[in-house]
């Protein structure tokens, strides 16, 4: 586990926000997928904040959310967004800059 963490950006904290709209199948899948990937690749290096837009619709505008579920990585830079239920691990990892493209 530790070695894998070494391959990523040295101990930086990943601030992840997952925007969902209610407890739909897609959002549940997305959250579980995300948790799984983070455990595998970013042990103890991440914070996941789940925002339910049904409860807080005013937050959608700030992060330019138009699709759900959307995963937003604000830190570390650059800002990235991944939409969908995060079923493709490869794409998520590349998208979060955990693994460089064409790994």
């Amino acid at each position, binding site marked *: 586990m530790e070695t894998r963490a070494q391959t990523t950006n040295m101990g930086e904290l990943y601030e992840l926000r997952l*925007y969902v*709209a209610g407890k739909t199948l897609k959002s549940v899948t997305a959250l579980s997928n995300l948790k799984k990937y983070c455990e595998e690749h970013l042990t103890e290096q991440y914070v996941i904040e789940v925002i339910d837009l049904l409860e807080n619709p005013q937050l959608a505008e700030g992060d330019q*959310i*138009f699709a*759900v579920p959307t995963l937003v990585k604000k830190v570390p830079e650059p800002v*990235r967004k991944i939409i*969908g239920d995060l079923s493709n691990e490869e794409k998520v990892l590349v998208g979060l800059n955990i693994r460089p493209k064409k790994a």
Partner: protein
Amino acid sequence: MSSTTSSPQNPNLSITSLPKTRTGIQGLDQITMGGLPTGRPTLICGGTGCGKTLFSLEFLIRGAQEFNEPGVFMAFEEKPQELAMNVASLGFDLQMLQHEKKIKIDYVHIDRSEIEETGEYDLEGLFIRLGYAIDTIGAKRVVLDTLENLFGSLTDEGILRAELRRLFTWLKDKGVTAIITGESGEKTLTRQGLEEYVSDCVILLDHRIINQISTRRLRIIKYRGTLHGTNEYPFLIDEEGISVLPVTSLQLNKPVSSETISTGVASLDDMFSGGGYYRGSSILVSGTAGTGKTSMSSSFVNKACKDGLKCLFFAFEESPQQIIRNMSSVGVNLQSHIDSGLLSFYASRPTLYGLEMHLVAIHKAIKKFKPQVVVLDPITNLITIGSVSEVKAMLVRLIDFLQEEQITVMFTALTLNTVVNEQTDEGVSSLVDVWLSIKDIEVNGERNKGLYVMKSRGMKHSNQVREFVIEDSGLNLLDVYLGPDGILTGSARESHRIEEETGQLLHTNAQDLKDRELERKRKVLESKIDSLRTEFESIEEELNKVYTEEKIKNDVIRQTREQITHLRRGTTAFGNEGSND
């Protein structure tokens, strides 16, 4: 569905018909007979730069300002600041409206580079945002500009299409009157075929360039469940927003007036039995270059202003200042009427924009100023930007509009010497009520102007050709001399007049001479009579003398005889008497 109650309705429509939401855009509500369908989405499509965004934004702003219907603008293309700047030039303060919570702009920014798609998703986020925006300000109107941008940003078209369908249903459920804009595709109305989702009302905007002049046009392709104008209507974007021109009210049921209005030239008034033109009629003044068409129309305007009528002068050739200066040389002071607010000029180059645009602009100016008299000087210049039939069609519509408003209109038209003057270039002669023709009469190395009334509907008019002169004090018409060689004008007329005067003088002289001769003859006669009478008297006297002598002689003879007789009887008496002898 709350918005259905608040929309003003066309009174002509029955209760069961489709509720409509007025756009507040000039002219559009007439074409759509009340506005856009309330609580339903309307698609506005067109090419780049045809005014889709402005159109939809004006819909929102007018709604907020005039109908108290707040609106949400969801922008996929431009940022709120950019939008505000775009409409600021039209006199709309978007920032203020946002501040007053009458309009909310939600800018949806999708940066392709920072988005990754993995697996299933939907656009619920968009729905939530829109729903939130609608709920916060209680919006009745929604604009989505331009939804198709989503197609460029997201790869999964299947999801998108399904979501769009859901979006339109959702908008209907929300009961908001929505405008969705879409860029024109090659063969379809929109690139992504949005029209298949929006089935209630589709409006196509068009921006065409013909002969280097652009004309914006609008057409309602589809409006389910209601009547609507089906033509292409030109529209104008100017400092007051969009105005569409409804151009088809050719019903020929206009009110007419039998009041007359002075022509501005007293001697011309006399040529009409009614003492002028009918109010609300259309007058065409045609003539070759420099025949005084503008002067004629200025005099008309001058007189109308003096009578307290409001006049609007459309100048397509000269600038207002030029006209004012030039007309002051013939005793027409237009400036004073401008100062008193009765006269207004509207000058524009014909090539500034297309015919339709001119028509829209003229409409607008007329609606704004509300004149009773309108002059267009000259209409011939419009031909540079359109074909004869187009100009004619435009003028038909203009005349139609003006007559409906009971506005008297005067057109001036330039005729070329090369063409047969019986027909004007614009072919409007059949449309107008009164046609004055000013012709050059070229004789004796001079050009003079002859004016005549070619036609005057519903009024007797002089059939004379009159000489038209422009003097320092204004315009005047003179009787034309008809000499043995035809019409005499100008100096020929003058010389003829002098000649006639001389002849008269000579004639009088001769007459005098004859009179004197007669007098003399009479005198001679009288003297002769006198002498004869004297002669007669002397002869008479002579004869009288003889007669008297004879009488005396006879008396004496008789006395003598008596005495003799007496003597024969007695002597005394005789002797006494004889001694007396």
